[in-house]
C-alpha cells in the first residue's frame, strides 16, 4: 500500500485514469518479480515425519504444537489431492518442495525482543523496502507483520498496540508467548482434518500472524501482513489467527508477492477468524502472487482455506478480496454465522489473464436467527484464462429469518477465455429469504465507442469501464488498498486488449 502512497505523492494533481495510463505505458508486467539473495537456511526437499519434527524443533515449539502437527500430518497422508476445482494441473509432487526456509539471522522466533526490526537481514529489509512495505516503525498509520518465506521478520507498532491490550505478533511468537490463546483457538474454525491443504498446512505451518483484540477495544490503526515467498521450490504455509473479543473492531489487510520462477510454487495458507459478540472484523486481501510466464508456468498455486466464525450475537465479519495474481487460485473465504443477528459479507474482484485459472468464491453458513449475508463477486477474464465463481449459501433449519443476497457478475475480455458461475443454494428454513443473481457480459462496443467519441483512448476506456464494474467491491477496501487494487487490475489487464 505504500506503493500506492508513492503514486499519490508523485502525481498529486493527476486523475485516476492518467495514473493507470502511466502504468500501462511503462509496460512492466510483474514488478514484484525480483529475487532477494541472502543467506538462507532451507530444508532439504521432501516431506516426512522427520521434516515436521524438524520444523517444530527449529521454531522451538512446545509439545502440544508438535502433537498438533503430527496428528495433522498423519491425517494428511490418508487423504487424496482434490481436483474438483475448475482448474487443470498435474498432481503435485509434494516431495519436490522444501518445507522450511528462512533468512539466517531472523530465525530466532521466540527469543527476539520487540526491537527485532534491527536484527533484520539487510537484504531482506531491502526487499521489503523495494516492495514498499514499511517494516521499520515509521509514521505510517498501519502496523505491519512482514513474513519472508517461512518466518516473520518484523512486526511493527507492537508497543503502541500493546497499550490497548492488542496482541499483534507472528504466529511463532504467539505459540511461545500466548500459548493459552493459540491452543484455545487454533483448529476451532478450520480443523486439521478439514481438507487436504488445511491438513498439509497444519502439519508444516511456517509462520503467520496472530491478532488478538481484547473486549471493547477499537483497534486504532489497520493491521497488516505482507507475505513474500523468495526461495525457489519452497512452499509457504502460513497460519493466521485473528480473534476479536466482545465489542471490539479491527481492520486487517494482507498483501503478497513472489519472485519470478520457472516452476510452480505452492502456497497453502489457513486463516481462522473468530468474531465474538458485537465485534466486527474487516479482512481485506490484495493477492498479487506471481502468476507465471505467458503460459502461467512457474506461477504460484494459491490453495487457501480462509474461514471465520461469528460466534456471538451481532458479530460481523467482512471479507474483501482483490485477486489478480497466482497461476491457480483455489480459495473460498467463508463465514459461519452462528450468533443470532450476525452478519457475513464477501466482496470479491477476481481477475484472470493469460492462462490463469481462478476458482474462488465463498461459503455462508447460516445457523443463528436473523443472520444476514451479502455476496458481491465480480469476475473478469481475459486472455486464455478461466475464472470461476463457486459459492455456497446454506440456511440451516435453525436460521429463522435468515437473509442472503448474492450477486455474481462476470465480464469477458476476449473470446479465448471462460467465465463460470457455480452457486450452491441450500435452504432448510421457510422463513429465510434468499436471492441470487448472476450475469455475464462483456465490454460493449457501444460503451467503448461512447468513450472514444469523447476523446478517451480505447485502453483508458477499458480501464474506466473495468473499474466501474468493480467499484462496488473496491469501495469496501481501505482507501490505499483500493488504489493499489485498481492499479494491479490495470497492470494485469495489460496486453489483453487492442
Amino acid at each position, binding site marked *: 500500500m505504500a506503493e500506492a502512497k508513492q503514486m499519490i505523492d508523485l502525481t498529486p494533481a493527476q486523475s485516476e485514469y492518467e495514473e493507470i495510463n502511466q502504468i500501462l505505458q511503462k509496460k512492466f508486467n510483474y514488478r514484484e518479480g525480483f529475487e532477494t539473495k541472502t543467506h538462507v537456511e532451507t530444508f532439504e526437499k521432501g516431506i516426512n515425519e522427520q521434516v515436521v519434527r524438524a520444523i517444530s524443533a527449529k521454531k522451538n515449539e512446545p509439545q502440544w504444537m508438535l502433537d498438533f502437527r503430527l496428528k495433522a500430518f498423519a491425517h494428511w497422508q490418508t487423504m487424496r489431492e482434490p481436483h*474438483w476445482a475448475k482448474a487443470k494441473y498435474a498432481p503435485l509432487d509434494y516431495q519436490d518442495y522444501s518445507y522450511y526456509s528462512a533468512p539466517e539471522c531472523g530465525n530466532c522466533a521466540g527469543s527476539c525482543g520487540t526491537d527485532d526490526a534491527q536484527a533484520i537481514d539487510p537484504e531482506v529489509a531491502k526487499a521489503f523496502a523495494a516492495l514498499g512495505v514499511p517494516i521499520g516503525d515509521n509514521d505510517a498509520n498501519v502496523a505491519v507483520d512482514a513474513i519472508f518465506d517461512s518466518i516473520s521478520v518484523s512486526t511493527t507498532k507492537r508497543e503502541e498496540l500493546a497499550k490497548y491490550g492488542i496482541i499483534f505478533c507472528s504466529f511463532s511468537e504467539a505459540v511461545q508467548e500466548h500459548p493459552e490463546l493459540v491452543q484455545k483457538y487454533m483448529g476451532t474454525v478450520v480443523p486439521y482434518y478439514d481438507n487436504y491443504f488445511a491438513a498439509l498446512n497444519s502439519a508444516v505451518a511456517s509462520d503467520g500472524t496472530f491478532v488478538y483484540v481484547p473486549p471493547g477495544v477499537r483497534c486504532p490503526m489497520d493491521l497488516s501482513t505482507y507475505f513474500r515467498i523468495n526461495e525457489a521450490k519452497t512452499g509457504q504455509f502460513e497460519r493466521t489467527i485473528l480473534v476479536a473479543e466482545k465489542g471490539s473492531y479491527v481492520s486487517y489487510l494482507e498483501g503478497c508477492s513472489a519472485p519470478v520462477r520457472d516452476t510452480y510454487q505452492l502456497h497453502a495458507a489457513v486463516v481462522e477468524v473468530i468474531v465474538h459478540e458485537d465485534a466486527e472484523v474487516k479482512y481485506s486481501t490484495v493477492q498479487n502472487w506471481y502468476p507465471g510466464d505467458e503460459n502461467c508456468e512457474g506461477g504460484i498455486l494459491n490453495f487457501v482455506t480462509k474461514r471465520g466464525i461469528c460466534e456471538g450475537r451481532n458479530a460481523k465479519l467482512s471479507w474483501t478480496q482483490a485477486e489478480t495474481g497466482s497461476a491457480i487460485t483455489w480459495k473460498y473465504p467463508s463465514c459461519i454465522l452462528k450468533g443470532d443477528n450476525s452478519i457475513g459479507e464477501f466482496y470479491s474482484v477476481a481477475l484472470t489473464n493469460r492462462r490463469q485459472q481462478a476458482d474462488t468464491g465463498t461459503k455462508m453458513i447460516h445457523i443463528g436467527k436473523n443472520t444476514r449475508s451479502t455476496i458481491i463477486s465480480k469476475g473478469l477474464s481475459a486472455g486464455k484464462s478461466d475464472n470461476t465463481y463457486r459459492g455456497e449459501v446454506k440456511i440451516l433449519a435453525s436460521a429463522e429469518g435468515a437473509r442472503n443476497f448474492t450477486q455474481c457478475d462476470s465480464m*469477458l475480455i476476449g473470446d479465448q477465455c471462460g467465465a463460470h458461475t457455480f452457486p450452491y443454494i441450500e435452504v432448510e428454513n421457510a422463513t429465510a429469504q434468499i436471492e441470487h443473481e448472476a450475469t455475464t457480459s462483456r465490454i460493449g462496443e457501444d460503451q467503448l465507442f461512447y468513450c472514444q467519441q469523447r476523446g478517451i483512448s480505447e485502453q483508458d476506456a477499458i480501464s474506466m469501464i473495468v473499474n466501474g464494474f468493480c467499484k462496488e467491491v473496491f469501495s469496501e477496501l481501505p482507501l490505499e488498498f483500493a488504489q493499489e487494487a485498481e492499479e494491479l487490475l490495470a497492470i494485469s489487464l495489460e496486453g489483453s486488449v487492442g
Partner: protein
Amino acid sequence: MVKKRSPIAQQALDFYLQQAQQIAQTSQNPFLSKVRQQAQERFVEQAFPTAKDEDWKYSKLSGFLAQHFSQQGISQPVANWQAWMPSFPVIKLVWVDGHFCETLSDELSQLPAGVLLESFADALQANTELGGLFANQDTVLAEPFASLNSMLFQDGMVLEVAANVTLSLPIFVLHLQTQPLHHSVLRQRVSVGENAEVTLIERYVSLQSQGAGCVNVVTEIELGKHARVQQILLQEQNRDSFYFNNQFIYQAEASQFTTFYGAIGSQLSRHQNHLFMDGEQIENQQNSACIGLGAQTVDSRTCTHHNQAKGFSRQLHKFVLEDQAIGVFDGMIRVDQQAQKTDGQMDNKNLLLSDFAKMNTKPKLEIYADDVKCSHGSASGQIDKNQIFYLQARGIHKADALRMITQAFLLEPAEVVRQEPIRRWVMERLALALQQTHLP
C-alpha cells in the same frame, strides 16, 4: 476405478444386471446386443450414484435401491382410462406398464399423412439396420440411469414427422403403471423434419394410489431446421413411486423447442433435459412447475448447450414445497466459444411452506464466448406477508389469499403452453395437486 458400493446398492446392481442378461438372451439382432452390452459395461462402471457424486448429492437413491423393480408381471385390466384423458381432441396413444397397448390407443393407420408412429418394440422388429435409433448412444450413456435404461428397455415410442407437416391435433401419450414393484423401461425417439410442427403431451400415472412402481425413460427428440416442437409432460404417479427421465434434445438451425414439465407425484422424481443447440438462431424454452409434499424428493434439472451463434434460451423453474419435501434444481447453461450473441436466461423460484422442507439449488453458468448475454436468478422464501395483507385489505379471506398467491406462483411456468385448452388443462392439474397441501 471401481466405486465403493453399499451391500444394498450391490444387490440392486446384481439384480438389474441379471435382468439385463435375461433380456440379452432373447435378443436376435446383433446390433442391439452390442448396444445392450455396451450399456451394461458402462453401467457397471457407473453403478448407482451416491450422495458423493456431485450430481446426486441431493437426490438420495436409498428408497429406490431397497426395492427391486422387475419388468415381468401381468398388467391389471385398465377399466377407466377415460378418467386420464383431457377434454380437448387429441391423438391418443397408451402404454400400459411400459408396453404399447393397441386396443386402448387410436388406430395408427388413421394418423395424418407424413406422421409415422410405431412402438419401439415394433421398430426393433421391423428394421434390421438399427444404427439410426441409437445414433447418440455415446451421449446417452453419460447418465447412469440412461445406461440402466439402455440395457433393460423393451418398448417405447418412435415418432417421425415428415418435413413441412403441421400436426393440428396434439399427440397424447399416456403411460399407465398398473402393478406395484413394476419397472417400466421406456425408450422414446421423436424426430421432427424440417419446418414441421408438433405438440406432444406425455402423462405418467399409476392406477393404484399406493405401492411403488418405477418408470425409467430415455427420450430423444431431434428437430430439423425450422422445426417447432412443443412438449408438455405431467408426472402424476402415486407418492410411493419412482420416476427417472433423461431427455436428450438435439436442435438444428432456427428450430424452436418448448418443454413444460409438471411434477406432482412420485416419492423420488428426477427429470433432466440435455439440450444441444447445434445450429444458429435456435430458440428454446424449458419450464417446470414442481410440487413436493410429504417425504417427496422432486428433482428437476436442465443442461443447455449453446453450441452455435445467436441462440436464445429461456428457463423458468418453480417449486412449492411442504412437509419434509426436498426440492432440487440444477441448471447449467454452457456457452461454447463459437456461440457468440447467445442470449440465455435461467430463473428458479421456490416457495417453502413448511419449516422442514428443503430446497437445494444450483444454477450454473459456464461461458467461453465473450459477446453473450447470460444470466441466472434464484430466490427462495416463504409467502411475502405484504402480499397477503394486500389481498386481505381488499376483503379477501386470509386462507383464500394464501391459496391464490401459492397457485399464481406455481402456475406461471405453465403459461408457456401456447394452446389455450391445453394450458387450462395443465393448470387445472396443478391447481388440483395444490389442494393436497395443508394450506388452510
